[in-house]
């Protein structure tokens, strides 16, 4: 039995063995049989999405209105996937399962809702539209200090066709989630020889990704590039520690520490391939630095632990990344820093406040929303607990996934530095998720970094009790994902009539008007991004307003105050169903306060109704009585 057959290759790819381990000589009819449940699950899903009425949604989002056939489809797919990894099926079969899960769960809103969800999506489309006709400088806001994503789509939109950014935005989550699979697979295969853990880890990432940053956004695309950089580094620049082969004390020490890491076959890249891969790593790092505020620092943390921990060889890359991040901040993001440096510096080290704004302050609002927030915390907590158990279990069996530990922990270092608008723990959890999922998969799978020669290169099939546990875990996570990802959907989805109202608003308003919404959940800014848009609940005086009864006089005074702050003479108030739902779900105002505000506005002579449909109304008001 060669050393390669034991899954402990020393460099030369075990080309004759590795495919056999995965494929085991299965024939085409096996694959067709394994894909039948996927087809049935897909058909059930297709039937389900035509029965869903988003208007009937409650405070827990889609979970209460999905038909039984939807859950049956997801359950069937989960069972089928777990049976396929019991005796690893062909990669193509497992990939189809994963892609189907992504479409069925992460593509649910794209398929059901006729227009993109989330106000940020519409805002991002608006920035792209703005850049089609204006320069990136001078910057209008923070987005313009990291314009990589927006410049990309402003360049592509004339090629895909005018006005197509909104179509792309609707289907973007599916494309992005499928794109994550390739780098995830490369990352996991650098950690283990057991392909069942690789596929189960991918499955758990899809099921555990409730954070919802896969929408049409710079962070979604930057996360893909982050995964790609880590994947290419771990694949092609991983340091192999061979005990006893080193002269320097540091290498001997590192070899002793990493002796328990699985010895995974290194690729047989030549110099040209390694150079090309390093060029792509640098290009992708540059693209990340230019596209998003947080991801470069997550990448810096990830690459930092790998370099300082001696897990990858290109040490200069860490220095280069540091220079890129610092250089961008000092030269390209100056306008942003000028306005925010004081805030950023005062938040450094305030761990308690940073965690509180990300976790505790989110468990508020309606009972349904609180349940959703608790499920989100529970899902993350369960995965972290499983990861901890997985790490302990594999270590006790002599397998220490130290690189994975590093990458799972590194993102949480960012919590020390700033709250990131109350989202830093969520973002850290997202960047940690792939590595947490891998360790969690380790607790569900047997520890077998070597294959059995007795079985001719195949692994023992997963036991039935273990398969059952994996199935149950998948079902629980799938249900939790639907609840946690779409829990706020009632305020995050938009009716087409709301977009019609915004279009009408842009038709009647002029660049000198101040446009006011009651809460942030509104599909606007997709045109006229440079006009003045204000949100009442984000106004400095809002907390004081919410303590008073919204009489007609007060409402007129408050709105006039917002307009006068911009030294303009008149403005428009846009009221939509989603704004009111958002305020109610998140508890931004006392019960009935927003509704009373709208009634007072309608009754006031200071406001003139200029447009109304089923989901929206527009009022015009002069700044002076």
């Amino acid at each position, binding site marked *: 039995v060669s050393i390669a057959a034991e899954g402990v290759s020393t460099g030369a790819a075990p080309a004759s063995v590795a495919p056999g381990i995965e494929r085991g000589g299965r024939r085409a009819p096996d694959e067709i049989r394994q894909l039948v449940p996927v087809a049935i699950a897909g058909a059930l899903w297709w039937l389900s999405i035509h029965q869903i009425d988003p208007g009937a949604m409650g405070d827990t989002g889609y979970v209460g209105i999905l038909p039984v056939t939807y859950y049956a489809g997801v359950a069937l797919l989960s069972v089928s996937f777990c049976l396929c990894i019991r005796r690893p099926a062909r*990669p193509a079969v497992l990939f189809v399962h994963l892609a189907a899960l992504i479409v069925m769960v992460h593509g649910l809103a794209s398929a059901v809702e006729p227009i993109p969800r989330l106000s940020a999506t519409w805002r991002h489309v608006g920035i792209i539209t703005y*850049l089609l006709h204006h*320069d*990136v*400088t001078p910057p209008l806001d923070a987005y313009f200090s990291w*314009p*990589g*994503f927006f*410049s*990309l789509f*402003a*360049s*592509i939109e*004339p*090629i*895909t*066709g005018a006005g*197509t950014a909104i*179509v*792309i935005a609707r289907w973007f989550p599916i*494309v992005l989630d499928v*794109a994550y699979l*390739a*780098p995830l*697979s*490369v990352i996991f*295969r650098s950690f283990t020889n057991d392909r069942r853990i690789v596929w189960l880890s991918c499955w758990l990432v899809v099921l555990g990704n409730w954070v919802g940053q896969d929408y049409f956004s710079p962070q979604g*695309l930057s996360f*893909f*590039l982050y995964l*790609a*950089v880590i*994947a*290419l580094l771990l*694949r092609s620049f991983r340091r192999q520690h061979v005990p006893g082969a080193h002269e320097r004390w540091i290498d001997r020490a590192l070899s002793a520490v990493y002796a328990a890491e699985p010895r995974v076959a290194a*690729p*047989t*890249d*030549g110099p*040209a*391939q390694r150079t*090309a*891969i390093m060029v*792509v790593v640098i*290009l*992708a790092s*540059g*693209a*990340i630095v*230019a*596209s998003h505020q947080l991801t470069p620092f997550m990448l810096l943390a990830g690459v930092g632990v790998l370099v300082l921990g001696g897990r990858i060889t290109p040490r200069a890359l860490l220095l280069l990344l540091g220079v890129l991040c610092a250089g961008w901040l000092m030269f390209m993001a100056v306008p942003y820093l000028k306005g925010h440096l004081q805030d950023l510096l005062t938040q450094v080290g305030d761990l308690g406040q940073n965690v509180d704004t990300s976790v505790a302050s989110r468990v508020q609002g309606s009972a349904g929303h609180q349940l959703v927030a608790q499920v989100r915390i529970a899902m993350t907590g369960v995965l972290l607990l499983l990861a901890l158990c997985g790490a302990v279990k594999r270590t006790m069996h002599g397998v220490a996934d130290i690189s994975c530990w590093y990458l799972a922990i590194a993102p949480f270092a960012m919590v020390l530095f700033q709250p990131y608008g109350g989202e830093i723990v969520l973002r850290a959890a997202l960047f940690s998720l792939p590595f947490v999922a891998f360790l969690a998969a380790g607790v569900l799978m047997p520890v077998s970094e070597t294959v059995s020669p007795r079985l001719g290169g195949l692994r023992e099939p997963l036991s039935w009790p273990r398969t059952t546990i994996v199935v149950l875990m998948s079902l629980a996570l799938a249900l939790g994902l639907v609840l946690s990802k779409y829990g706020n959907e009632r305020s995050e989805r938009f009716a087409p009539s709301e977009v019609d109202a915004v279009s009408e608003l842009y038709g009647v308003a002029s660049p000198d008007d101040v446009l006011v919404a009651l809460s942030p959940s509104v599909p606007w800014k997709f045109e006229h991004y440079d006009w003045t848009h204000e949100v009442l609940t984000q106004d400095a005086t809002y907390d004081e307003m919410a303590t008073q009864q919204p009489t007609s006089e007060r409402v007129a005074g408050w709105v006039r105050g917002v307009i006068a702050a911009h030294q303009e003479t008149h403005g428009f108030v846009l009221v939509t169903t989603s704004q009111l739902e958002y305020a109610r779900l998140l508890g931004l105002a006392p019960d009935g306060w927003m509704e009373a505000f709208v009634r007072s506005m309608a009754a006031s002579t200071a406001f003139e109704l200029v447009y109304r449909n089923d989901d929206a109304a527009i009022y015009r008001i002069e700044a002076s009585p």
Partner: protein
Amino acid sequence: MIRLAEARRSWAWPVLLAGSASLTLSMYALDTGGSFRIVVALWFFSVCPGMAWARALGIDDLAARWTFASAASVSGAILVALATAYVGASPSVPLLAIAVGMTIAGVGYGLRTRSVRPFRGGRDVQR
């Protein structure tokens, strides 16, 4: 028959990549295509330039090849778009020209290197 099938398979990717470039270019020039145009253009910009070079360089592991291809294509497109944005140039034409150029160059390099390598089981450019 087997050799014919292998030959067809080895030409599939170069034809697909060059075809995607031509199709994107044509639909942009003729301003036609509807939803199909969106799919083709996104496919082209997010995969093709990188895939042409991933295959030319012989990155034979499937997941690594797709990772390389999409990361190279997307990050290259972002950096070109960014440069044109800061320069103040018309953004689409330089991006399209560079992406098509990189794709055709990658396909050409791949075909050239394959012609000097021994034919191995119908798998093109595998080291």
